[in-house]
């Protein structure tokens, strides 16, 4: 099986998935399919693709196609490598799993597709398992995935009315009859289960470990698309089945979202590893999506349906946008890592000269993720801000005060994101190369860039064409009775995107036009006024002679002011070792300074659980002490207890 076959098969199925999704989105009629014979006892395989599922299937397609194209050249590089066939099979199984999740029609199909996706991605993360921390990352990843399944299973089973009626339609009917406490429990289980897959703060620990360990186009898929299925699950259960709930649901989503947005970007700032930085940003963007969902949920719980729809529309729109620009960033980062054989930004630099197209791609991705105007990030973040502004019209002030705090945290997060991506792009692409690999880097092969260009164009189109895309999203929302927007508000596709009750309107297309016109005009004027060519000389260095790469600003230097500002959160560890010359302490041979920022809350939450399990295990091990007498005592005691139980059981 040559690599081309693997990749061409998977490109084929991704295109097929996209076609199915678009067909449902356009006609708004759900597609149904059933294979009852397979495992009839568990309700057989049932597929039901409604517009919400189709939207997420489209996101899978949009994220999957470029990654599959990128896969062509990646696999050539791995040609003949032992783990290639496993990689090829698992990549296709991963895509299959992700495509089936939005189509699933009953519990069993959903859970099987969910697990297939997780198992396949575990093996993909473990492809180059030579170094230890990939194995460690793989273990973290599959443990958290299994944790999410262990939480999701009881949730689904609590929702299911009877043993044989487990289709989503039954769940929807049964959910109406549940008692408020049970609905609360189901909501919490859904939040924890889908939140751990989406990467919400306390449950995000696997994300910055697993994504960088996987090959780049796999991390693009995982970061861009897989975590979105967590969002899909949450919307499906909380808003479709349970049809929204009391205000504290939304408040919980809002708090979790703002915390994730802020902590995600704060820890991204401190990263030197390019792919870990992007992974932490996924946590931030998932936080933004949760903020939008939370705002929508709170507004719905107070009956302000018109205002709530912009929250849900913003969430869906940001999901789509994040899939595009995060996929683009990971593919571009993949090309950089592929060329420089390192993920550490300190050893990169000056790549814009050697890899101009990759640099431009990364720049477009960074501009989009930082929500700079003409691109798609700005449109969806504007809608998220509007959904938070809409919160001001909530009658209860003590709830409404949460919205400005969320606005503050979101704005701080987007400001820090700007700083983070100036660092990411500036340090790795600009100035002079700081390592031998960086200086010898060549432009990535052709097919690697096709996929990335596809996503870059999409970012621009979605940004400029926001006023056309948003009305389509409203149509997707109509398919869920929990989210039906009120008819008056759905704007026809035009040049403007509206916030409800004319709180604000914006025309991304016209802004882009304005910028282009002014920029081009200025360029024309300057060219006419000043026609002399520019002279090239050394960078100004207060009169010293040579400018060496060691004098450049590095990633840790760039982030040092912010590390000092947020020192209480980071609690950086510093150890400084100075070894002086043996003869006299005043002559220093070498100084080594090592400072590390380890997220302390990961130790605070996860280590106690692991320690407790090991303590119990140590005690259980003592049971098997080796003496046959003790074993026989166990048997006799068990017998006596069983015989005694005869009396006191009914």
């Amino acid at each position, binding site marked *: 099986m040559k690599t081309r076959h693997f990749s061409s098969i998977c490109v084929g199925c991704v295109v097929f998935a996209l076609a199915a999704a678009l067909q449902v989105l356009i006609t708004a009629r759900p597609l149904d399919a059933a294979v009852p014979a397979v495992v009839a006892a568990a309700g057989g395989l049932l597929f039901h693709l409604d517009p919400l599922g189709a939207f997420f299937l489209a996101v899978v397609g949009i994220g999957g196609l470029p990654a599959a194209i990128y896969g062509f050249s990646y696999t050539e590089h791995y040609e003949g490598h032992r783990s290639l066939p496993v990689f090829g099979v698992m990549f296709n199984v991963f895509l299959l799993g992700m495509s089936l999740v939005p189509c699933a029609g009953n519990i069993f199909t959903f859970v099987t597709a969910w697990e297939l996706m997780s198992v396949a991605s575990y093996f993909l993360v473990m492809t180059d398992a030579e170094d230890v921390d990939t194995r460690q990352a793989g273990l973290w990843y599959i443990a958290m995935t299994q944790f999410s399944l262990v939480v999701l299973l009881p949730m689904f089973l609590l929702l299911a009315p009877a043993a044989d009626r487990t289709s989503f339609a039954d769940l929807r009917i049964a959910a109406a009859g549940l008692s408020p406490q049970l609905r609360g429990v189901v909501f919490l289980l859904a939040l924890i289960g889908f939140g751990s897959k989406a990467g919400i703060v306390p449950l995000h620990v696997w994300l910055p470990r697993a994504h960088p360990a996987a090959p780049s186009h796999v991390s693009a898929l995982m970061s861009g698309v897989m975590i979105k299925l967590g969002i899909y699950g949450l919307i499906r259960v909380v808003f479709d089945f349970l049809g929204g709930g009391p205000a504290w649901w939304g408040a919980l989503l809002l708090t979790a979202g703002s915390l994730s947005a802020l902590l995600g970007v704060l820890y991204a700032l401190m990263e030197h590893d390019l792919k870990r930085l992007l992974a932490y940003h996924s946590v931030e963007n998932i936080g933004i999506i949760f903020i939008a969902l939370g705002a929508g949920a709170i507004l719905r719980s107070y009956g302000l349906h018109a205002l709530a729809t912009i929250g849900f529309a913003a969430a869906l729109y940001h999901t789509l946008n994040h899939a595009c620009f995060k996929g683009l960033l990971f593919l571009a980062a993949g090309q950089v890592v592929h060329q420089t054989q390192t993920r550490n930004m300190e050893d990169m630099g000056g790549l814009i000269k050697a890899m101009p197209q990759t640099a431009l791609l990364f720049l477009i991705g960074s501009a989009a993720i930082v929500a*700079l105007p003409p691109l798609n990030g700005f449109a969806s973040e504007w809608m998220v801000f509007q959904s938070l502004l809409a919160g001001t019209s909530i009658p209860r002030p003590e709830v409404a005060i949460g919205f400005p705090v969320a606005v503050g945290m979101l704005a701080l997060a987007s400001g820090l994101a700007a700083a983070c991506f100036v660092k990411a792009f500036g340090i790795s692409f600009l100035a002079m190369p700081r390592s031998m690999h960086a200086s010898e880097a060549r432009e990535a092969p052709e097919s690697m860039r096709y996929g990335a260009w596809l996503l870059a164009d999409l970012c621009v189109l979605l940004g400029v064409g926001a006023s056309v895309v948003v009305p389509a999203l409203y149509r997707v929302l109509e398919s869920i009775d929990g989210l039906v927007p009120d008819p008056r508000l759905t704007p026809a596709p035009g040049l403007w995107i509206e916030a409800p009750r004319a709180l604000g309107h914006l025309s991304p297309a016209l802004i882009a036009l304005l910028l282009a016109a002014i920029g081009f005009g200025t360029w024309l004027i300057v060219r006419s006024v000043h026609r002399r060519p520019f002279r090239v000389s050394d960078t100004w260095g207060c009169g010293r002679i040579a400018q060496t790469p060691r004098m450049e600003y590095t990633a840790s230097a760039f982030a040092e002011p912010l590390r000092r500002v947020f020192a209480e959160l980071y609690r950086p560890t510093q150890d400084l070792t100075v070894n002086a010359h043996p003869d006299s302490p005043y002559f220093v041979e070498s100084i080594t300074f090592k400072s590390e920022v380890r997220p302390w809350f990961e130790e605070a939450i996860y280590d106690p659980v692991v320690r407790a399990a090991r303590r119990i295990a140590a005690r259980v091990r003592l049971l098997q002490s080796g003496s046959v007498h003790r074993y026989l005592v166990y048997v006799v005691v068990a017998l006596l207890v069983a015989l005694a139980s005869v009396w006191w059981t009914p």
Partner: protein
Amino acid sequence: MIEMLLVVGQTLAGVALAPGLVGSIRWTKARLQGRRGAPLWQPYAELRKLFAKERVVSHNASWLFHAAPFVVFGTAVAVLSLVPVVFVPTGFDSIGDLFAVVYLLLLGTFFLALAGLDTGSPFGGMGASREMTVVALTEPTVALSIFALALTAQSTNLGEIIRQTVAEPARALGPGHLLAFAALFIVTLAETGRLPVDNPTTHLELTMIHEAMVLEYSGPYLALVEWGAALKLLIFFAIAANLFLPWGVAFTPSPVALVAGFALFVVKIGALGVAVAVLETRVAKLRLFRVPELLSASFVMALLAVLSTFLVR
């Protein structure tokens, strides 16, 4: 169609006015410090000189170094066209609101910081790092002051806010407005690199933030960047002036209203310029790691502004 022309005219007038504003602030500071000071039109002379001079570019620089000045200047002019300086267009919906203004300015700063890093000089890197830290810390204050304004005017579009404040002045003069104005004023000082945060006149490597990024620029590029910075100053003054004291802005395209509006606008901007000049002569530059305290103070003020508008409503 007339309103389109008026907006373009208004923008061009603003572009022309900006260097003059910087010149007047410098002149006022000089007079306050007992110096004769350069004449008001000095910045225009500098710009004319720079446009004639030759561009010197470092061999490390990439295409981004050449593009950044146009982006900085372009975003500044675009934002100016969104902010109703003299005339508030009623005919067509304005294409951007306060959030668009903030993020367009962020676009300009983003590219300027990258240009600073591009040449590989340590000063550029230091400037970019400090600039991005300051920008990141001012974002929440700007967002919250917009929140306060939007709360009272029930809209984030600038034209709408001005119209609402003029229509019901009583609501506008609440405590929330004052606090929001103070917060926004601090942000203006931080964003445009005025004294307490960054010294605009210094060339001492260790203290400059904005200057460090543009150290490498020369000739027309430097002119564009300086002009962009001046425009940014004008924008912030215009926002502070028009949104918080909007009286005198022309709503109808009649020549009388336009002239009166322009005159009033110049007066308001001049007053703000003098205020800044007075402040700069009295206050010394804050150490970089004391700036976050100033910015968090402005954030708290903005939060109180929002709270008070809530309670009043």
